[in-house]
């Protein structure tokens, strides 16, 4: 890691990255109805402007020597409290700039797409405000130069995510999905927060530079604790096991949101966190092992569940879970895989966003219908959508020389490249995941775009007939742009280790792989497995017409997959129930024990004073009587002392 220098020149304006979208959000939220007519345009304009500035910044940085590429822009002292000083500063280095480009680029496209997609929504202006808010928070997350700033952005994107998932707040499932996302994110945030606390307690700072410089002073147990807690935070944000359940539910939000937040950007924040914290993870092999296990397990269950769902977006969501599992697995590999993880993150950002936008386009044309069993044969009716979607599909399943081929296969190869059993296990899981990915994606393609149109005899829930049609230009253009990204990004990034070299100042040099299987062998293995998946999918879904209703008499694995592999049940059984019981027990103790004690004391006092109160009869003669009694007592006492 290189030491940052003070930002100068065009980088001195880096605060614009935060200010522009935040300004947009503020204007749109505070402006109210007056901004209804041009609000969406303002939202797009700010993000596009941010993108333009980010690109300029990127190319400026690119022109500098690798040592000078890391800079910091100090804005102000944020929390100047005694021992804790948190400065509000932006860290401009290859990693953050990469994310800036991803966020603003994909963000711009999705903003544009949203103009068309949300055209019929009443609160479009508010929607763009939330999107802008999200972009601002996400940029703060990646640009912050310390964990507290990151945490600020982290919570900001959480808020934006909550608001956007619950966009259709009149729908119960959307509302509960928003709450679910919010709560499960809290679990992860708790881990992140505790990790930050530990850093502050042990190191007295939360700035990246100082933490990474001095993390070696910590004991291995502390480092392990920090890594695991950071991982918990990453799991929460990125929908990794065991906190993956909120992500599919989050598809209740509008599709652009799913594309931007829950596919391309926000959910990758966990990957960013681990990659950013690479100096810490480098110190703890055990921590990285846990990260890998989580990643591998998540990628597997994501694939498996993705096979079972019939909801277009949910399948894609589980696909996202699975793909982020790949990324986590990659960053868990350590210096072997940080850059690979980031690369897959970027390519995934392109093709998954494209896939989601395509899905949105399809649903837009299908009366917001999400059930793929009600679709079919849409390829002719939506040619642009079909083509762009297919390109994204191919990129995802790792079709040779498309994006996924370079990024995902590299991860699989890196997984295989480990020593001993780890190589076989993680590599095997990753390769298996690739096969299953090919299977469910092909299933999706076959059911949606190919085959016979099953929607012709059906009506949507609101009673309308389906009239699939191509989407407007504002929606198709971003899809096309993203399709280009899906096709070319991987090649661009991986040729000559472009990306790894660029990221080296942030993540260190990419290590050479010496694993159980060679790169070429892995390539062929993966390709073979993917082809097998495609073939199986064609055999199952391509050859014969599919029923509109999903078959209910299915085998156990399918049932389990349909039930999210009992993830929710597991959460329920392991956490919710004991939590409820604990709460009930505590409430009981509070009501009967604490309250009983307090109320009992109060009742004792009240009762006794009620009795004693009766002495105050209001009759002055009674008082005088007691006075005389007291006088006699005093007199008697005096006499006893005097004469005894």
């Amino acid at each position, binding site marked *: 890691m290189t030491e940052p220098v003070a930002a100068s020149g065009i980088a001195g304006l880096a605060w614009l990255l935060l200010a522009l979208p935040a300004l947009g959000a503020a204007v749109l939220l505070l402006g109210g109805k007056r901004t209804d007519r041009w609000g969406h345009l303002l939202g797009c304009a700010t993000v596009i402007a941010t993108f333009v500035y980010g690109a300029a910044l990127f190319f400026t940085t690119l022109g500098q020597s690798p040592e000078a590429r890391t800079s910091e822009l100090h804005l102000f002292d944020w929390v100047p409290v005694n021992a804790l000083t948190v400065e509000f500063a932006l860290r401009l280095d290859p990693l953050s700039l990469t994310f800036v480009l991803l966020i603003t680029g994909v963000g711009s496209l999705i903003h544009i797409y949203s103009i068309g997609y949300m055209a019929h929504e009443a609160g479009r202006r508010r929607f763009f405000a939330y999107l802008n808010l999200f972009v601002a928070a996400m940029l703060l997350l990646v640009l912050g130069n310390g964990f507290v700033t990151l945490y600020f952005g982290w919570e900001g994107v959480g808020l934006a995510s909550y608001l956007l998932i619950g966009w259709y707040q009149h729908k119960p499932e959307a509302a509960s999905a928003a709450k679910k996302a919010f709560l499960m994110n809290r679990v992860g945030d708790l881990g992140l927060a505790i990790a930050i606390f530990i850093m502050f307690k042990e190191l007295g700072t939360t700035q990246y530079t100082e933490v990474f410089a001095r993390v070696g002073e910590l004991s291995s147990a502390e480092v392990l604790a920090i890594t695991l807690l950071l991982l918990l935070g990453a799991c929460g944000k990125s929908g990794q096991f065991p906190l993956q359940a909120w992500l599919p539910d989050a598809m209740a939000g509008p599709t652009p949101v799913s594309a931007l937040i829950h596919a391309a950007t926000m959910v990758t924040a966990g990957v960013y966190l681990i990659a950013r914290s690479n100096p810490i993870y480098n110190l703890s092999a055990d921590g990285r092992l846990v990260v890998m296990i989580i990643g591998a397990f998540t990628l597997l269950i994501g694939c498996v569940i993705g096979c079972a769902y019939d909801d277009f977006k949910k399948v894609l969501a589980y696909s996202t879970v699975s793909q982020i599992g790949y990324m986590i697995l990659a960053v868990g590999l350590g210096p072997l895989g940080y850059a690979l993880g980031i690369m897959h993150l970027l390519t995934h950002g392109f093709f998954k966003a494209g896939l989601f936008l395509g899905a949105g386009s399809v649903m837009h044309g299908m009366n917001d219908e999400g059930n793929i069993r009600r679709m079919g044969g849409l390829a002719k009716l939506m040619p642009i959508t079909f083509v762009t979607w297919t390109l994204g599909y191919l990129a995802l399943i790792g079709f040779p020389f498309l994006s996924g081929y370079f990024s995902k296969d590299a991860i699989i190869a890196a997984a295989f490249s480990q020593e001993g059993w780890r190589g076989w296990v993680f590599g095997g899981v990753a390769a298996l995941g690739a096969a299953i990915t090919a299977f469910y994606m092909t299933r999706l393609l076959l059911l949606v775009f190919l085959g016979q149109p099953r929607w012709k005899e059906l009506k949507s829930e609101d009673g309308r007939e389906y009239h699939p049609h191509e989407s407007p230009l504002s929606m198709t253009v971003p899809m096309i742009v993203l399709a280009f990204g899906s096709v070319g990004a991987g090649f661009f990034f991986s040729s000559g280790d472009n990306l790894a070299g660029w990221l080296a100042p942030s993540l260190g040099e990419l290590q050479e792989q010496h694993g159980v299987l060679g790169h070429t062998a892995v390539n062929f293995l993966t390709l073979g497995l993917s082809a097998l998946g495609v073939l199986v999918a064609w055999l199952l879904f391509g050859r014969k017409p599919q029923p509109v209703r999903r078959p209910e008499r299915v085998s156990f694995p399918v049932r389990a997959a349909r039930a999210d592999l009992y993830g929710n049940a597991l959460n329920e059984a392991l956490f919710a129930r004991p939590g409820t019981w604990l709460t009930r027990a505590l409430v009981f103790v509070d009501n009967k024990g604490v309250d009983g004690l307090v109320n009992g004391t109060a009742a004792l006092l009240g009762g006794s004073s009620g009795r004693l*109160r*009766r002495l*105050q*009869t*209001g*009759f*002055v*003669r009674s008082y*005088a*009587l007691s006075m*005389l009694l007291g006088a006699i007592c005093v007199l008697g006492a005096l006499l006893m002392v005097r004469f005894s």
Partner: protein
Amino acid sequence: MTPTYYLLLSALLFSLGAVGVLVRRNAIVVFMCVELMLNAVNLSLVTFARINGELDGQVMAFFVMVVAAAEVVVGLAIIMAIFKTRRSASVDDSNLLKY
């Protein structure tokens, strides 16, 4: 006979005054009982002055009289004020300040 008898008389008068305060209900009579107690004290003060051969006891008694006069003036004014509003001079009737 010694001056102690005066003190005994004083004690008896004081006790009678105390009992009167407890037993009588007319505020004015209660007040008179208090005056009786003061008088009993005065008697003992005078007697002590005589026993000690100093006039200080008589001066004390003089002060007691002055204070008693002031007390009576204010006390009776209060009783009159209460009587004006409540049409009663019974100490038992002024028992709102209870419980």
